[in-house]
């Protein structure tokens, strides 16, 4: 079990820079393709038309009418409702009527039970609303062009930007309507289905994570990571018991607000245990937590605590602690001038290991109500819907409905965590074996990825081609959104509140980054093509 919010942690400056890169890349792609298209269809004068259109668009921006946009929004909204888009509620109703049968009794593991219920509701809502929005946004404008209804709109003073915006807002509103109804039902369903004894777990923890985690090896030297106990993919590093091995967290900006009402600092962990010998399997491994302030040469170590394997464990550390019969105040005496608190965790059991990652230990602030996190997760889904809508509508201005739907789905699929991370690896050269052509050559020739290619002009061409392709992939990597930013339901189903700065803000930035290029794309696609269905 792991959940690492580090992936969401973004520096605001980097976020804004990323935003600018996404906007820049997308805008460049849109303008470049539009110019090429105009050149191909209208010859040399197409270039002049392209610049005229740029000016025309700028002029259109000053003539935008909220009433016209709202008219097109209402049209889209009415169309969706009258074409039975709300039939999705039937599927939703059926799923929720019978879901309880299959999710009944996991009472023995209450946190898992709560997680499964929340996760089920939020996943179901996502996977029901996404296809509805995908279909609506990809087929609206192509159908208008096919049936020529768009002739009666573009021969009115409606600007192309208004058509695109009206469609986007209308479809998003429909998506939000469906989402809101499902979210309300889902909320009541969760609260009613979860047994009374598990209800206290229905909360949103507010964690404050350490800025960093550092490791000390068994000899007492600083190490990049702990011990790898054999996992191919290591989320956690392990520290060996009864040695000098340690993990050190640095918590920043620690002050009185971190104390609970009883004056305790609440440390919660989800350490994992790895045994190098069986022994008594019912006996837990033990760890201790040490607070230290090198400047004052002061340290306080807690009593040994058992590792709660596969679960969370809360350690309430009183702010007033006694060291050598002298009482100290953790916040005053252990927090240094930079307002940093150093926390060290070590394993007590000899030849046993405790695994930990940065997010495995945090200071738990007062909890927030469940509904707050739940509705933030719904906000995350609605932002995903908006993103899909923008991409789908702008794609549908260029190609026919089914193609736009496939294109949008592929972009969404590539935006998923694993796919996007794989793109990252390719773009930043973390995958051995070279680029596309080189790896094909290696496959055919049965060459290992680390084997050197022979020095040959042909391979220079291959490498150059791969370099070009890699640059194109770099562009795609920036153009395709990273859907993990929008994955707020994951926070809630893991029992956390959705943080504003590390999740909501990045997702808002990513969404806003797509508005300008998508509208631009829609404008150009509708302006430079003849709206005659052939």
């Amino acid at each position, binding site marked *: 079990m792991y959940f690492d919010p580090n992936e969401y942690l973004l520096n605001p400056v980097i976020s804004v820079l990323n935003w600018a890169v996404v906007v820049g890349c997308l805008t460049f792609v849109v303008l470049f393709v539009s110019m090429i298209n105009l050149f191909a269809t209208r010859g040399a004068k197409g270039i002049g038309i392209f610049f005229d259109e740029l000016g025309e668009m700028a002029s259109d921006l000053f003539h935008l009418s909220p009433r016209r946009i709202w008219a097109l929004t209402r*049209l889209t909204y009415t169309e969706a409702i009258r074409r039975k888009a709300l039939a999705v509620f039937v599927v939703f109703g059926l799923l929720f009527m019978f879901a309880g049968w299959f999710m009944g009794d996991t009472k023995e593991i209450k946190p898992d039970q709560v997680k499964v219920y929340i996760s089920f509701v939020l996943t179901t809502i996502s996977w029901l609303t996404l296809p509805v929005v995908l279909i609506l946004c990809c087929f609206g404008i192509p159908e208008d062009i096919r049936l020529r209804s768009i002739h*009666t709109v573009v021969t009115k003073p409606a600007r192309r930007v208004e058509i695109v915006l009206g469609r986007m807002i209308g479809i998003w509103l429909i998506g939000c309507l469906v989402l809101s109804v499902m979210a309300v039902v889902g909320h009541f369903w969760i609260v009613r289905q979860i047994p009374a004894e598990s209800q206290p777990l229905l909360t949103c923890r507010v964690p404050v994570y350490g800025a960093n985690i550092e490791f000390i090896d068994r000899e007492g030297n600083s190490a990049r990571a702990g011990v790898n106990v054999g996992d191919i993919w290591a989320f956690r590093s392990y520290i060996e018991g009864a040695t000098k091995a340690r993990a050190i967290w640095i918590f920043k900006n620690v002050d009185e607000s971190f104390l609970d009402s009883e004056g305790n600092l609440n440390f919660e962990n989800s350490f994992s245990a790895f045994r190098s010998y069986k022994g008594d399997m019912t006996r837990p491994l033990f760890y201790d937590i040490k607070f230290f302030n090198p400047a004052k040469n002061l340290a306080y170590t807690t009593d040994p605590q058992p590792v709660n394997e596969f679960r969370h464990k809360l350690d309430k550390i009183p702010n007033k602690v006694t060291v050598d019969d002298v009482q100290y105040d953790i916040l005053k005496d252990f927090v240094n001038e930079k307002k940093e608190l150093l926390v060290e965790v070590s394993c007590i059991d000899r030849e046993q290991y405790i695994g930990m990652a940065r997010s495995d230990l945090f200071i738990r602030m007062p909890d927030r109500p469940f509904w707050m996190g739940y509705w933030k997760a719904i906000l995350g889904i609605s932002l995903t819907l908006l993103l899909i809508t923008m991409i789908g509508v702008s794609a549908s201005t260029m190609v026919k409905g089914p193609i736009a739907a496939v294109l949008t789905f592929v972009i969404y699929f590539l935006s998923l965590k694993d796919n996007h991370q794989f793109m990252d690896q390719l773009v930043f050269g973390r995958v051995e074996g070279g680029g596309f052509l080189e790896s094909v050559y290696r496959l055919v020739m049965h060459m290992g990825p680390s084997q050197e290619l022979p020095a040959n002009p042909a391979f220079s061409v291959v490498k150059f081609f791969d370099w070009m392709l890699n640059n194109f992939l770099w562009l795609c990597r920036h153009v395709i959104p990273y859907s993990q930013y929008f994955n707020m339901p994951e926070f809630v189903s893991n029992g956390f509140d959705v943080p504003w700065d590390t999740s909501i803000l990045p997702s808002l930035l990513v969404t806003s980054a797509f508005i300008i290029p998508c509208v631009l794309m829609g404008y150009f696609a509708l302006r430079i093509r003849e709206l005659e269905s052939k």
Partner: protein
Amino acid sequence: MSQSETVIEIRNLSKVYRDFWGRPKVRALNALSLDIKKGEVFGLLGPNGSGKTTTLKLLLGLLFPTEGEVKVLGKSAADVSKNERIGYLPEESYLYRFLNAYETLDFYGRLFDMTAAQRKERSEKLLDLVKLAPQSRRRQLKEYSKGMQRRIGVAQALINDPDLVMLDEPTSGLDPLGNRDMKDLILDLKAQGKTVLMCSHLLADVQDVCDRIAILYGGELKVMGRVDELLTAQDKTQIRSSKLSDAALKEVQEVLKRHDADFTVDQPTASLEDLFLKTVQESRERPGHRNVTDRQSVT
């Protein structure tokens, strides 16, 4: 804008449709040039595929010219702002079929940035003008007959009280009553000083309402001029009078013979449209009355 001001200016307009690969497929229009003045009713005539609708779509900016230039109300066809003063009735009902009549006009009214009060007032007025029955106004357009769809189409074209009205086959799908209403409407628009450009291959309709016509064939302009001038037979003289006695008729014939005139004498017939309209009118005034002259059809 003065009476002689040019509303539509077409210069050397050509349109070539191309296939997916950009190869020329059809030359739909070839070097068309014409002007349409303010306040006139202009008819574009021609058989199917002659380039009438293509011309209209080029004027509206729905298609891009291959060559040539178009100015509508003094602006380029691509300029959206020209649409503020244009009304367009497409060839078929391309309206949103899931809206009802009120919603349709309200939607198009919003596109002209009209206020709610303006939209409401204008919608009522237009629905009365096109004679759409009140009980039909709340039904979705997909339930409408072709004639009803044509009527609501006309209403949406006039929602902004346009200076220039472009009508593509305006009488297509209409019964003779609707046809007459449409022609009356066009004449009424003319009386209001509006410019009307209509495309049609129904010659009688064009003859009844148009001031000037242009006949296209194979994408080329073949004939253009005033209807009355084009249709006047210069080598013939027509005399009409009330019914003459046999003696008077004989006397007239003798006079014509003396002047070596090539003539025929018969009684004029009304058009079928006139007969139909008269019958419907009488039926409305005298329900149940029948006036059957063909005895075989009675048995």
